[in-house]
C-alpha cells in the first residue's frame, strides 16, 4: 500500500502526466458512454446533412454529408480506438516478450535465429507492412489488431532480451537454478517481474502509436467497414475539405489529444517507475 502511495506521489510530481491521465480517463468515459448516449449506430442518418457545429443543440458537433451525427461518431470511435490500441499492444508485447525472453534466456543458436528474425521485422517499414497485411487479409477489427501487433513487436523483443541478459547472471537467478527450479518458472516468477517497469512504459507509448496507426489505416480506407473510427471519419470528410473542413478538423483534434495524453502517461510512468533517474 505504501509502495503504491509512493508510486502515485512520484507520478503526480509530473504535472503534464497528471493532465495526460485525466485526458485518457475522459476518452475512456466517452467510450463507455457511447452506447448509452447514442444507442443508435453512428452510421445512422439522423439529421439535416452538413449542419455546422454549435448550431443545433441536438447535434453539438454538427452532422456530416449524409446527416450522420459527428458527436456520435466521436464517442463510438473512442471505444474502437481504445480497443484496437490496447489489444494490439497486448499482442505486440506478448509476442515481443516471448521472443526476447526465449532468446535472452537460452542464448546460443536460438538467440541468433530469433535475432535475425527480429532484424527482418524491424527492417520492413512498419506502416507499409501493416498496410499490406490489412489490405491482403481484408480489413476488420481482428486483422487490424493482428497487423499492428505483428509489425510492432521487435522493439519489445530487443528490450526484454537486453534485460534478461543483464539479469541472467545475477545471484538470485543463479540461486534459483541451483535449487533446481524449472526454466519456465524462473522466467515467469523471477525474471519477468524484474523487467516489468520498462515493459509497462513501452506499452503505454505503444497504445498511442497503435491508435495513430489505426487511424492512419482507416483514413486510407482500410478501417473495419462495420465500425466507426476517427480515421474513417477523416477519410470520408476529405472530399468536403473545401466546404466543410470542420468534419476533418474535429476527429483530428480528438486523435491528437488522445495520442498526446497517452505519451504523457508514458513519461509519467517512466518517472514514477525509475525513481533513481534524475528529474528532467
Amino acid at each position, binding site marked *: 500500500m505504501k509502495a503504491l502511495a509512493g508510486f502515485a506521489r512520484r507520478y503526480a510530481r509530473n504535472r503534464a502526466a497528471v493532465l495526460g491521465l485525466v485526458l485518457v480517463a475522459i476518452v475512456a468515459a466517452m467510450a463507455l458512454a457511447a452506447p448509452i448516449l447514442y444507442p443508435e449506430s453512428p452510421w445512422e442518418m439522423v439529421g439535416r446533412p452538413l449542419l455546422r457545429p454549435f448550431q443545433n443543440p441536438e447535434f453539438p458537433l454538427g452532422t456530416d454529408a449524409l446527416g450522420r451525427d459527428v458527436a456520435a461518431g466521436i464517442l463510438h470511435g473512442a471505444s474502437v480506438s481504445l480497443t484496437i490500441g490496447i489489444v494490439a499492444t497486448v499482442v505486440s508485447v506478448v509476442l515481443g516478450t516471448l521472443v526476447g525472453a526465449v532468446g535472452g534466456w537460452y542464448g546460443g543458436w536460438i538467440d541468433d535465429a530469433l535475432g535475425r528474425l527480429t*532484424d527482418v521485422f524491424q527492417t520492413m517499414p512498419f506502416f507499409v507492412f501493416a498496410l499490406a497485411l490489412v489490405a491482403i487479409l481484408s480489413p476488420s477489427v481482428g486483422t487490424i489488431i493482428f497487423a499492428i501487433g505483428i509489425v510492432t513487436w521487435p522493439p519489445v523483443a530487443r528490450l526484454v532480451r537486453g534485460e534478461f541478459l543483464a539479469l541472467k547472471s545475477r545471484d538470485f537467478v543463479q540461486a534459483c537454478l541451483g535449487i533446481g527450479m524449472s526454466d519456465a518458472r524462473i522466467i515467469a516468477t523471477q525474471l519477468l517481474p524484474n523487467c516489468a517497469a520498462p515493459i509497462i512504459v513501452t506499452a503505454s507509448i505503444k497504445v498511442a502509436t497503435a491508435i495513430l496507426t489505426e487511424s492512419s489505416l482507416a483514413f486510407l480506407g482500410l478501417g473495419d467497414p462495420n465500425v466507426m473510427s476517427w480515421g474513417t471519419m477523416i477519410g470520408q470528410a476529405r472530399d468536403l475539405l473545401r466546404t466543410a473542413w470542420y468534419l*476533418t*478538423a474535429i476527429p483530428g483534434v480528438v486523435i491528437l489529444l488522445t495520442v498526446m495524453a497517452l505519451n504523457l502517461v508514458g513519461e509519467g510512468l517512466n518517472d514514477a517507475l525509475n525513481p533513481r533517474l534524475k528529474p528532467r
Partner: protein
Amino acid sequence: MNRDRPAWRLARVVLRRLLQAVPIVLGVLVVNFLILRLAPGDIADVLAGESGVATPGYVAELRTRFGLDRPVWVQLFAYVSNAALLDLGWSFRHARPVAELIAARLVPTLILMAASTTLAVGLGIVLGVLAARRVNRPIDAVISTLALLCYATPLFWIGLMMIVLFAVQLGWLPSGGFETLGTGATGLGRILDIARHALMPAVALALFYLALYTRLTRASMLETLTQDYVRTARAKGLPERLVVFKHALANAVLPTVTMTGVQINSLLGGAVLVETVFAWPGIGRLAYEAVFTRDHNLLLGILFLSSVLVILVNLLVDLLYAVLDPRIEAA
C-alpha cells in the same frame, strides 16, 4: 599497404554491412511470400471472378500459367531467385513489370524524404540547442510544448489542415501534385515550381521528426553541457558560442545521426500518407493505389524495395558515423 588508412576502414565497414544484409533481404522475401499465401484466393481466382465466365478449366489453366499449381517450396524458390534479379513479378492491373512501375515513382519519393529529413534534422538541432541553452525558461517551455504537440499529430490530418489554410483559404500554395501541368517550364523555373509543390508535403512529413530531433537534441545537449570537457573549455575562457557549438554540439549530434537511420523505416510509412493527401506521385501513392486495385504483387514489391531502401540508408548512416567518430569501427 597500410590497412589502417581511413579508406580501408570504410571499405571494411561497407563489406561487412552488405554481408549482414543478405540474410535480412532473404528473410524479407520469405515474409512477403508468406503474406501472399495468406491472401484468401489467389490471382487466378481474382482474374477468373472478374472475367465472369470462368470455367474450372480456365481457372486451372491460369494457375498453370502463373505457376500456382507447383509445390509451395518450388514457388518460394522461384519467388526469391526472381527477386534477387530485381524481377518483382508482374502487375496485372498496370500490365507492366512491378520493378518498372516502382522505378518510375522512386525520384519524387526520394525528393520528399530528403527535403523532410533535412528540414527535420536541421531545424530540430537548432530548436533543441535553443531549448537546452534556456532550460526551464519560457522559450524552452514553448519549444517543448510544440514538440509534444507535433509528436502526437496525425500527419495525414495536419496535411489536410495545411491544405485548408494555405491552399483553400489563403491560396498561397498548390493543394497537391508534383508540378503545374502545361506550363512547359524548364530549368530553374521548373525546379522552383516543383519546390512550391513540395513545400507542404515536406513540412507535413517533417513535423513528427522535427519534434523527435528537437527532444533528442535537447536531452543530449543537457547531458553534454554537464561534461568535464565543457567545464574545462569554459574555465579556460573560451567564448560561450564556441563552447556550445564546437565542444558540446559536436558530441550531442551523434545520437541524432543514429536516430536518422532508425527513423527511415517510419518515414517511408509517413510517405504513403503524405503522398496520398497531396497527390504526390511517389512510391507511397503507388502503394495506396495498389491497395485499391487489389494489386498484391505491386504492394509486396513496394514493401520489398522499401525494406531494401531502409538497409541502404542505414549503411549510409553507418558510414557517416564512421567518418564523424573515428573511435568507432561500426559493428
